[in-house]
């Protein structure tokens, strides 16, 4: 991208270079990235409805545009034009802030995720990237709690409470499940984790249990079926967003799908080799892609995209298949199974690494 910079800079003519470099260029980058991700997230909603429909012997939305492909444009238009209802007893300020809270961290997390081989696609390769992503994704729940409380509806309140409990229970196994990966790779940088995997194997093999826990916890983390308790429509009407309408509702909706996408990206990066398709340094490694130039970059992006798409479909597949857990059973599963299992996984991983190291040393 730096090659295109002079071209862009020349377009701005007499504007001083620091302003171009630090204001205009980042803004452009941000707008493009935001628009693309927003589009992908919106498109996911369409894909979900179509795939879910196909799994249920029906067609799903197919009216707007060919094969319903423009549905994801029509939906936001509809939601923007809808009346924005504020319940009379709502706590106004909190009610307005709540929808923004989940969507900001969800989109912010995308900055830290390398969508393809560096340097092009890794927008910000932070050396504690993983930690930062985890921190951001876990803040999303505050919007749900706040929204549930502020809308002055008992169903919303219950949804918010459920969400709080769910977050507390599943943050822990979510974090613990990746400790094994960190022990293996020795880095918190997502790029480094992928680099480690292309030199050995995908982390899913040595960390099968960790991967499984991560999969379950990430489904619970984004309130997706079978853990969609905060919005369980057959129990709590619509849960925390019962009273939200129009674009405020859409913000919750988009935030959910954005965090789905973040988590799908994370599992691919942590356990499924990210953008690479290599084992023990053979195959399409990062270095091989970088040597191929732009083609390699795009190839890496496509591989990454395909892997992420699989996990997005998996979310939908789960939703189409499983009944919903009950509130206390969800807690049981989290505290009695996931956390002990994650801890055991860490211990076993540690022992194996220790044995391997001492074996290598002697």
């Amino acid at each position: 991208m730096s090659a295109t910079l002079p071209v862009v800079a020349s377009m701005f003519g007499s504007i001083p270079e620091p302003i171009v470099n630090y204001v205009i260029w980042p803004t452009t980058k941000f707008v493009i990235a935001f628009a693309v991700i927003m589009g992908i997230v919106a498109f996911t909603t369409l894909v979900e409805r179509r795939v879910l429909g196909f799994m249920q012997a029906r067609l799903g939305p197919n009216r707007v545009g060919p094969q319903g492909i423009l549905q994801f444009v029509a939906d936001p238009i509809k939601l923007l034009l809808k009346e924005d209802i504020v319940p009379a007893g709502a706590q106004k300020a909190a009610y307005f802030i709540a929808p923004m809270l989940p969507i900001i961290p969800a989109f912010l997390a995308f900055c830290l995720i390398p969508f393809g081989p560096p340097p092009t696609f890794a927008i910000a390769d932070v050396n504690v990237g993983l930690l930062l992503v985890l921190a951001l994704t876990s803040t999303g729940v505050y919007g749900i709690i706040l929204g549930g409380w502020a809308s002055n509806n008992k169903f919303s309140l219950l949804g918010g409470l459920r969400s709080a409990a769910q977050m507390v229970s599943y943050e822990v196994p979510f974090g613990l499940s990746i400790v094994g990966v960190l022990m293996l790779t020795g880095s918190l940088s997502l790029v480094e984790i992928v680099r480690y995997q292309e030199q050995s194997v995908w982390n899913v093999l040595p960390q099968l249990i960790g991967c499984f826990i991560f999969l379950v916890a990430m489904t619970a983390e984004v309130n997706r079926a079978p853990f969609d308790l905060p919005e369980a429509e057959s129990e709590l009407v619509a849960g925390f967003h019962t009273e939200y309408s129009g674009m405020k509702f859409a913000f919750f909706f988009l935030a959910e799908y954005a965090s789905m996408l973040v988590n799908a990206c994370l599992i691919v990066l942590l356990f499924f080799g990210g953008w690479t398709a290599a084992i023990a340094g053979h195959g399409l490694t990062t270095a091989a892609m970088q040597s191929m130039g732009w083609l390699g970059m795009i190839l890496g992006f496509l591989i990454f995209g395909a892997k992420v798409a699989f996990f997005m479909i998996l979310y939908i597949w789960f939703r189409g298949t499983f009944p919903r857990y009950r509130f206390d059973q969800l807690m049981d599963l989290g505290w009695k199974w996931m956390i002990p299992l994650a801890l055991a996984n860490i211990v076993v991983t540690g022992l194996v690494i220790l044995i391997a190291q001492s074996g290598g040393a002697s």
Partner: protein
Amino acid sequence: MLVEAPKTKWTDRFLLLDLLTGLRTTWRELWRKKVTVEYPENRLPTSDNFRGMFRFSYERCIACKICAMACPIEIIYIDVGEETREVDGKKKKIKVLNRYDIDVKRCMFCSLCEEACPTKPKSIWLTTGTYELASYDRNELYMNMQQLEYWEGRPEYSTLEEIAAEQGITEAKALPGKGDSK
């Protein structure tokens, strides 16, 4: 007969087989033919004795009011007058149907009126014709006997092309309007 839950082995539970069978079902269904009928373009054919919209025949009706009596919700309104008419050269008093209205919006299509009708063929009957009776104005669904008899539309007239073909005119310019556009 006692029904009991199927026994599952612990190995199956450990391997999440119960969840995987469910996933397999939905996966298979993903590739199967869909059952959706896209409504306004495609319609399911109604069966031969589908109870759809009414038809009424003034010709056949003998103004006996049995249908009105059979109706459970009394939505058939019939007025019968007497008229002296000349039939075969003699003056005769005959029953004349002055009003035959059905409040279709309240109808539940139970077909009891059709069953009660003594004429052969029936003078009030439920056709397989249509089930699309939605209207923007509820008054439109209160129908008098003309509306009941002709709701299917006026008789269709043949098009110019058909007339031309009938009369053996083959040249396009013979048809007014057709040649002008060329």
